[in-house]
Each structure stands twice: as structure tokens, then as C-alpha cells.
């Protein structure tokens, strides 16, 4: 595979590209070392599912979420793009853990709020515009194979926008978003994954123990 490691210069033949030490990631995120190790088990499964390079490609991400790598999904695209912090088209282990950390139930609400805002700011303008909200509602209806009239969609979008856009400038800025989310906490429902609290049970990390021994004494 021949990719350089971002952390240890030990050059272990087993560590995939983008691997970072669990202790480092644990210190920077909401996860414990054991949880990061468990996430590594999940990461390995995902990152070797189609392109066997130890990095999560878009199709592998889609496969994990939808059980098929075909087709496109606006929302999965947004999540993938935000996870891909380096913007190099793949999610490496460090990005995976750091981004998932925001979904930990104990992660700071401010982080969740900010992440959701970026998620919905489709064009990255720094605001959530009405067209973007409409586009997302329509995309959800399409995805769910549900039919709703244009005026019903408009009513939903107008209603929500009216609640959120307090200065009535046609777009939702980060402050307005924060106020909206405080008033309607359900808007962040997808930003917490209770599964993350049970991750060590779901993904026991047998392999990691030997990895940890290999890395002991090697500092970052």
C-alpha cells in the first residue's frame, strides 16, 4: 500500500494509511482509548469493504449506510464531505474518530449544533438558505419514496424558516440556528448516536492488544 503514516514513524506493516494512535485520538475526542480501539475494528471493516486500502471511500460509506454502494444520497454526501476533513476524497481513521466523536451522546452540544449547521449549509455559504432547506426536504421525500404536493413542501419550509429566520433576511445564520435548536432540540436528533456508548461491547478489539504492545515505547 505504501502510504506514509501520519503518526508513528515505526512503519508497521500492519497500520493502514491515516492511522493514528488510540491514545492520541482519545485525548482529543469524547472517546476512551478502548472505545477508539473498538472503533478501529469497525473502521477496518468499513475501509476494506470495497477498495482494500484501509481508507473509507464514498462507495464504502454508502454501502455501510444503505447496504448498497450504488445510487446517490444528498445527506450521505454531506456527512461524508464533513467527515473528510482533509478534503482528499477519503475518510482516514483519524477523521473517522474525530468526526464520530461529535455524535457521542456526551459530546458538547455546541459541536453538534455547529456540525449540523455545516451539514445543512449545502453550498457552504455560511448560511442555510431557504432553497437549501427546500432542496433537502424534497430530497428526503424522494428518498423515502413519499409524495407531497409542491405547496405542502412550501408550507413546511416556510413554517420552519419563519421559526428560524428571526431577522427575516431569507437565510439562517449560525446564531439563529443556535436559538432554533435550543427551542426545538429535536432538530439535532440525528447528531447523537446512543450506539457510541456501547461500542466496546459491539466491537471487541482482540487484534488491538497486540498492536498496542507493538507501539509501546514509540512516542508521537
Amino acid at each position: 500500500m505504501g502510504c506514509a503514516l501520519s503518526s508513528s514513524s515505526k512503519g508497521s506493516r500492519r497500520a493502514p494509511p491515516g492511522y493514528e494512535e488510540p491514545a492520541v485520538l482519545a485525548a482529543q475526542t469524547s472517546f476512551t482509548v478502548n472505545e477508539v480501539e473498538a472503533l478501529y475494528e469497525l473502521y477496518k471493516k468499513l475501509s476494506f469493504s470495497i477498495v482494500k486500502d484501509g481508507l473509507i471511500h464514498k462507495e464504502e460509506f454508502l454501502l455501510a449506510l444503505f447496504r448498497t454502494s450504488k445510487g446517490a444520497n444528498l445527506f450521505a454526501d454531506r456527512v461524508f464531505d464533513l467527515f473528510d476533513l482533509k478534503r482528499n476524497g477519503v475518510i482516514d481513521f483519524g477523521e473517522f474518530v474525530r468526526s464520530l466523536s461529535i455524535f457521542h451522546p456526551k459530546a458538547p452540544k455546541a459541536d453538534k449544533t455547529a456540525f449540523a449547521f455545516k451539514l445543512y449549509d449545502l453550498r457552504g455559504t455560511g448560511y442555510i438558505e431557504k432553497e437549501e432547506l427546500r432542496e433537502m426536504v424534497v430530497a428526503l421525500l424522494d428518498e423515502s419514496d413519499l409524495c407531497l404536493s409542491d405547496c405542502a413542501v412550501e408550507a413546511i419550509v416556510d413554517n420552519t424558516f419563519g421559526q428560524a429566520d428571526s431577522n427575516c433576511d431569507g437565510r439562517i445564520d449560525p446564531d439563529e440556528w443556535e436559538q432554533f435548536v435550543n427551542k426545538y432540540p429535536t432538530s439535532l436528533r440525528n447528531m447523537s448516536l446512543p450506539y457510541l456508548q456501547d461500542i466496546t461491547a459491539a466491537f471487541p478489539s482482540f487484534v488491538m492488544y497486540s498492536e498496542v504492545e507493538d507501539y509501546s515505547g514509540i512516542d508521537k
Partner: protein
Amino acid sequence: MDKLIEHPWFKKGYKPAVMLGTPRSSNSLNDVQAAFSTDHKEAEEPDSPLKPVSLNAFDIISLSKGFDLSGLFEQNQEQKASSRFMTHKPASAIVSKLEQIAETESFKVKKQDGLVKLQGSKEGRKGQLAIDAEIFEVTPSCYVVEVKKSAGDTLEYERFCKKDLRPSLKDICWSTQAEEKNASLPPLTPSSKSITRNAI
């Protein structure tokens, strides 16, 4: 932050029964649901004992599977089986329909606010089949029903949906885009999704 975690929406749909095998007690969940639904209820439903939860546009968007990262953690192919239906009948009609379906299959019914729980009496391959049907209000004349398997075998759940649920709900629910095609009605084109019977 604690309020956020305790909020029913985070527990909804995240039942880990399939993956971890530890069913969560829903008593406190329903209590909080009750509190929540009275705050956000928009529709006038004087006859209905149920108060479905109201969805804003961001709630609707968050229903997407693309946002549901719990899919990353589900180990086996047994996806949490679920389907969505849309209707412009009031929530009480949906509940009656579900109760009817339950009766024909000898299912027990438990209802609390926007959530109807059905439980099969027969021991299936993986225990008794249990299904949750949650009713959400999208607009005062439009509701989404999300039907999910909460326990039991997925194949049995799918059989139930195909044989009992879908045919029964057909009279009260809008056809999905796929069903419209199957029923050899003129297909809906992406640009013209207007349905004349919907009036806001």
C-alpha cells in the same frame, strides 16, 4: 445537554434491540413524548386521544437514512426493518386502521400518543414479532407513519408488511411513487408532484 439526551427524539428509532439485544424500557420515553407532543402539536384533533408529534422541516430531513449513522454500527444484514407511509387522514384513522390489522392477526395493541405498539402472540423464529408504528404530523393535513420492527424476525416482519400492513393501509395512505407505477396509474414525474387532493 442533559435535556438533549433525555429528549425522546434521541431514543426514537435508536432501539438497539436488533444489535445488542437489550430492549429499552419505553415508559419514560412515552411520558416525555406526551410532554413533548403537547408543546408542539399544531393540528386540531378534538376527537383523537392520540397527539402525534409535530415535525418541522429539519426533523423531516433528519429522518434520512443518509444521516442515520447507526447504519455504520449494525453488524448483520438485519437492517432495522422500517417503512414509511404518508396519509392525509387524521391520526385517529391511522390508529383505527392499525388496530384493525392487529385484530386480524391477533396482535396486542398498546398506544400512547403518537406511538402504536403491536405485538404478535405467536412465537416466531426469533421470539414474538413486535412492531412500532409512529405517527408524525408533517402539516395539519398530512401525516407520516413510520412502521418499524422492534423485535422478532425480519422475514416475519416483512411478510406481515406485505400481507397485512400494506394492503390495509393502502386505502388511507397516499401511494408511494413506486406503488403508483405498479397500480398502472399515470406515473408521477419528478417535476409535477402536485396531488390535487391535498389542500393546506
